[in-house]
């Protein structure tokens, strides 16, 4: 089943290694060119759901400057799911891109006399 866009970017953010909530939120915003900017509630809900599905797990908790931070990392299943989704999106994009090339080729071809 296709992943929702915020879930996809959360999983993609965690491909680089374990991150805490704030780092995930900023990484998601960067990766999506600012299109997806999850709130704390949305991000937390998504992480909880991914954790219950076994795609993400908690690595550790620590307190930095009085702030409690919880680090999450991808599981093997999580990495497989996000890579499968990326391949699916790539294949879907190719359908359109190849058609674009073919259409441009037809336009350039000279008409028979």
């Amino acid at each position, binding site marked *: 089943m296709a992943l929702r866009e915020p879930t996809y970017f959360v999983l993609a953010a965690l491909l680089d290694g374990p991150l805490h909530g*704030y780092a995930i*939120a900023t990484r998601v915003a960067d990766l999506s060119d600012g299109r997806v900017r999850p*709130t*704390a*509630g*949305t*991000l937390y809900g998504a992480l909880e759901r991914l954790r219950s599905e076994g795609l993400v797990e908690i690595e550790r908790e620590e307190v930095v400057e009085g*702030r*409690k931070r919880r680090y999450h990392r991808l599981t093997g299943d999580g990495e497989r799911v996000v890579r499968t989704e990326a391949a699916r999106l790539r294949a879907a994009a190719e359908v359109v891109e190849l058609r674009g090339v073919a259409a441009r080729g037809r336009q350039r071809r000279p008409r028979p006399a």
Partner: protein
Amino acid sequence: MSRALLRLCLQAYPRRRRNQDGEVLLDLARELVATDDRRFAMSRQAVGLVRGGIAEHRSRVLGGVAAMPWRDALGRLVLPLAAANATVWAATLGPALSVYGGPGRLWLVIVLGSVVALLGTLAGTRTVALLGAVPVAAAAVATWGSFAFGHGHVRFPIVIGSVFVDGSQAWMPAALLLAVACAAGAASGRRPIRVGVLALTPALALGLSAAMTFDRYGAYWWVSVGPLLAGASLAVLGGVALAAARRGGAAALAAALVLAALTPALAQVAIRLIPIATGGPRPLHISLPIGLAAVAVPASACMLLARRSRRWAR
């Protein structure tokens, strides 16, 4: 101020979640506010926390229901349904006392049955729950059928065009579902007292306020009870349908229930030339096909969709 607002919004989460993860969530929200240069950053995070909390409550109550085998799903739904049923009928106390000069026998059966079903569900006693739920379902079916076969009165009217539709008829599928759920899953153990108080509060609050203000019905009961009944029914069934559609679970049941709730109103509006339930009985050659159609449409839709739903067939 911002910290206080975010902490207040955090209250939307269930207590256990707040105790477990509240500080992590608050710190995350505060960091996101501090580094977000857009306008309304604070209100975005506040709304996000409230939405997250509501979603968490919803998933705790209904989570996975659509993906469960139907017997388990009904067992999970039984308490929310019993509470909703008692609340809906408590809301009708106002017009029952003020407009009709006292509750009728059918109304009494429904209200008492609703209370007994809720108490039986809370106590985890299947016999008591069924004892309450079955008369409610029977009375609801009788009300639903009366527009075609009998000469029932439109007690809780909704006016659609020039047609009076009885809002209580829309509750019939929910009442049936409650009876089936009581039979399937009510005896799953006694609920904690806190859950019991939460389940009883809406019905008690509405019933008491109706009893106290019924003599000023026109002034206070500005929400007509007919649309309220139909709206509550569609909200409950629509919620089930939405959950089922999103998870691909028991969509057949949910779709059929919504259709069954809508059918009486649609049928009545469609045959607007025939005066519905305004007095004496209608001739059999008119009422029989209408009644059969009203029952047949949701029934056939249910069968059709059930064949497509592997989970429901399991």
